[in-house]
């Protein structure tokens, strides 16, 4: 699907950059750019990281199945 779009190298770099902006924005809003939050997950006192990962995976799975 959309093969012609995937072959446009320069445009793809721009899309990658744009995706990165959204991804970084979401990571920060989720708090997982914060050392204390990551550490809290590993010490099993703050489950933010797992909540984000699992909801991303469940949402993503649905899309991948349908695509």
């Amino acid at each position, binding site marked *: 699907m959309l093969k012609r779009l995937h072959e446009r190298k320069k445009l793809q770099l*721009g899309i990658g950059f744009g995706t*990165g902006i*959204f991804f*970084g924005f979401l990571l920060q*809003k989720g708090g997982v750019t914060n*050392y204390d939050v990551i550490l809290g997950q590993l010490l099993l006192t703050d489950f933010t990281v797992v909540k984000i*990962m699992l909801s*991303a995976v469940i949402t993503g799975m649905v*899309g991948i199945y349908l695509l």
Partner: protein
Amino acid sequence: MDWFMMERWSPYAVGFGMGVLSWITFLLSDKPIGCSTAFSRTSGMLERLFRGDRVKEKAYYKKFSPEVDWEWMLVLGGCLGAMISTLLSGSFRILWVPSRWESAFGPSFTVRWIVSLIGGILLGFGARWAGGCTSGHGISGTLQLAVSSWLAAICFFIGGIFTALLLYRP
């Protein structure tokens, strides 16, 4: 607009957003969201500054050519996106030593810096051996139900929890 200025969003909303973002990137770019390959490409670019084009002969860099690609731009955009988020919520600040680290190991920046450097090297090694990091394996791989990614993600947590408990348990 208030929504964008909030300091934190619900983790479920953030996860949902990342999931939707992964649909869009698979559709528009046919690429999984990942980060660690961009770091090996960058190391190739740095090596090329010193050793010239011979770097390209290396088997590893034949596979992961040292050049700016989609994922490299994603990492760059990620830094910018996170910064925009902190600026909008007013939480942007430069922090040399994280608070939890400080309460356990003291305020020395040098100690923190050296440990971070060692940690970064181990992280880079591990991510390349595994062929992915928390984003590539942990999110993009697991949502495609790749067995290797589920194994890798579970092992990231086992290793991380073990090390954190070892370091932070009094």
